[in-house]
């Protein structure tokens, strides 16, 4: 915990989605890491809205109150689990998130923190998944752009099927550090734009 941080309003909002968290060792660990960082608000969407009745005004209010939005989820069919899509469909309303009068999210940052079962090597043109994760995240990137947000490269934890506990610990540690840097405005969106991911990236001075 950085001294003085606890006094301020939280800046980072992690929107977490996993429909069967009890079965996912990696997401449990990463979620715990996120919850351990001061100044980060964590929302478990399947826990909040088990009936998919998303409270739109409440979610919009949370978006307004934070500067960095993180979508944390497993990579289901090269995209997010259903509830996060539902959340996007309902919360990112015209007139709020986009459109002439929709400027609520302007200037905020969006980051995806994603786990994939398959290894990183399979996500390239020669691999079985052909596209990189970054490429397949195009809909999210464009969503961010339409909402006037700055889209950062994703944070990736890949090869979870066979991941050793030590490596998972390393990733969890990496993830908390990333959240701290996002919180403390240590990452310059323009400088990192071209990177395939944010793993192991050490932020420099403020944005």
């Amino acid at each position, binding site marked *: 915990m950085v001294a003085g941080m606890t006094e301020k309003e939280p800046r980072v909002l992690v929107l977490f989605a996993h429909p069967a968290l009890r079965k996912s060792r990696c997401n449990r660990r990463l979620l715990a890491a996120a919850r351990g960082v001061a100044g980060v608000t964590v929302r478990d969407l399947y826990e909040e809205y088990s009936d998919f009745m998303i409270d*739109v005004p409440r979610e919009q209010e949370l978006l307004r109150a934070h500067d960095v939005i993180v979508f944390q989820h497993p990579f289901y069919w090269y995209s997010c689990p259903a509830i996060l899509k539902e959340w996007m469909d*309902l919360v990112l309303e*015209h*007139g709020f998130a986009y459109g002439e009068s929709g400027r609520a999210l302007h200037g905020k940052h969006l980051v995806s923190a994603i786990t994939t079962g398959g290894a990183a090597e399979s996500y390239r043109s020669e691999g079985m998944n052909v596209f990189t994760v970054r490429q397949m995240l195009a809909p999210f990137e464009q969503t961010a752009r339409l909402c006037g947000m700055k889209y950062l490269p994703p944070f990736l934890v890949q090869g979870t099927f066979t991941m050793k506990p030590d490596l998972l610990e390393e990733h969890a540690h990496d993830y908390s550090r990333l959240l701290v840097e996002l919180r403390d405005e240590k990452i310059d969106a323009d400088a990192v734009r071209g990177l395939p991911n944010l793993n192991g990236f050490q932020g420099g001075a403020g944005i």
Partner: protein
Amino acid sequence: MTGIMPVMLAAAEVDHFLRPAFFYLLAAVISVPLAKRLGLGSVLGYLIAGACLGPAVLNLVGDAKNVMHFAEFGVVMMLFLVGLEVKPGVLWKLRGPIFGLGGCQVLVTGMVLALLGVWMGWPWQQSVAAGFILSMSSTAIVLQTMGEKGQMHTAGGQASFAVLLFQDLAVIPLLALLPLLAAPGAGAEVTREGFGAFPVYAQVLLRLGAVLSVVVAGRYLLRPAFRIIAHSGIRELFTASALLLVIGTALLMEAVGLSAALGTFLAGVVLAESEFRHELESNIEPFKGLLLGIFFMSVGAGIDFALIRFQPVQIVLITIGVVVVKLGVLHAIGRAFRYPRPARDLVSFYLAQVGEFAFVLLNVAEQGRILPPDKVGPLTAVTALSMALTPLVLLIHDRLAASKCNKTAEPDREADEIDEKHNPVIIAGYGRVGHIVGRLMNMQGVRCTVIDLDADQVDLFRKLGTKIFYGDASREDLLHAAGAAEAKLFVLAIDDEPKSLEIVDSVRRHYPNLHILARASGRIHAYDLLKRGVHDIWRETLDSSLEMGIAAMRRLGFPAYEARRAARVFRAHDEATVHELADLWGDEPKYIAAVRQRIEILNRAVEADRATLAMPADDAWDTESLTREARGEPA
């Protein structure tokens, strides 16, 4: 009460029964809460109260011996209750500790104490008799205290129980063997009357027959009988038959020369798996508590302070010697049987006193001229004194255990015995609502303790293999028997509104940490529940009514998902109004008739609906504004 009741009681009745009863009860009411407040436990409170009543101090109750004989029946009832907690399978698992640990305890303690007697210059026959008599421990004190402290289910508690059970068994051969120790030439007459007049093989057969009849009757006769009694719906009839069962079993066992306590214990074990277990428990419990209390007081009153004053050093030394020997021997045996340290400590400290059976055996020994009166007197005093010292010995144990915990910082936690008592969920009411909850829990492997007041319902679900108990869940003793102290959730699913509120009051008073999920029949009931601080409420018909509303919308051509979302939005709004209106509820003058109340409630709900109509309904996925913007129309 009109003229039928005699206004004056006969003077003899007052003297023989009411006056001592008054003083016993008064002493208990004053001293037990005081002792508990001081952290000494109820047993010491009773003993002190008894000592105050006795001839040495106030001399208010006359001869305590008769009272003690009567009150000993409390021990019999306690063993019945213990039996109800012990399923046959558990008993079978305990056979090792019973005969191993228990057998060794009686043999070794008896012999060491006998050697001590010989060393003190007593004839060896008297030493052996005294040694084995003093090897008995007090079932009453130990089980009562363990129950109060919740230690029955620990490894140490189970071991203590096994030893006590063996001691109860050992009383029978001891009674038979004591006459053999009569000093030669003392001319002890072995009287052969009644049961003793039968030849040995007939005695054995009769005893076997008695035990067998308890088992068979418990299995096949009692359950249908209890079912009929429960159907009658008369509470006191159930109490009467429970008492009848215990007293009848005790009489039968006494008649064939077996221990009444053992017999009722067996009856309890046989009934441990019946649906009436909890109800039987809660019916016998108050009698047991009262009788045991009187028993402890009579022990206190029976302490011969004159004798102690006459030879204080001798009696105190013998008492300390006996307690130390019993404690040391049990500790060593526990080590030999590889019990972990905390269990060993618990058993040896708990069982270090001499028990109530010693009074009986000392009596027999005196009559059979095995022990002379000038030894029986001090030994009786030693027995009573060692019982009175037990709470202090246990205080030492608790201190030791606490300091050890602090030192190692490693909790000396022992494994719990898995039992019906430790189910995380208690369901009260297993009708239309409760059984759905129970089945859902079952499917997820969550074990539930179920209580229902409807004998038919209990029958039906037992036939289907559900563990369900008959009883009234508003009674604290029944809640306790169902494990409310350990449970996490209390599902209140009965349909009787006043009863439901009664249960809520009882649960919140006795188990404030037990979380309640409640079924509400309607708004008024929901308001009453909310007022009592129960926030997790389900109005029983709300969800099915909403489903019906959805079906109606579908019939009218609404798309399925839209209809469902509309119902969900309505539900959220309706739940919110219930919580809002509950705060206003209760300000009404009490005399508003029930019908008017209902109209008033509906009126308010409808008003709340109107207020919401002004708000935008479900506008999810609404792209109207986007369309307008694309067409260049004003927003």
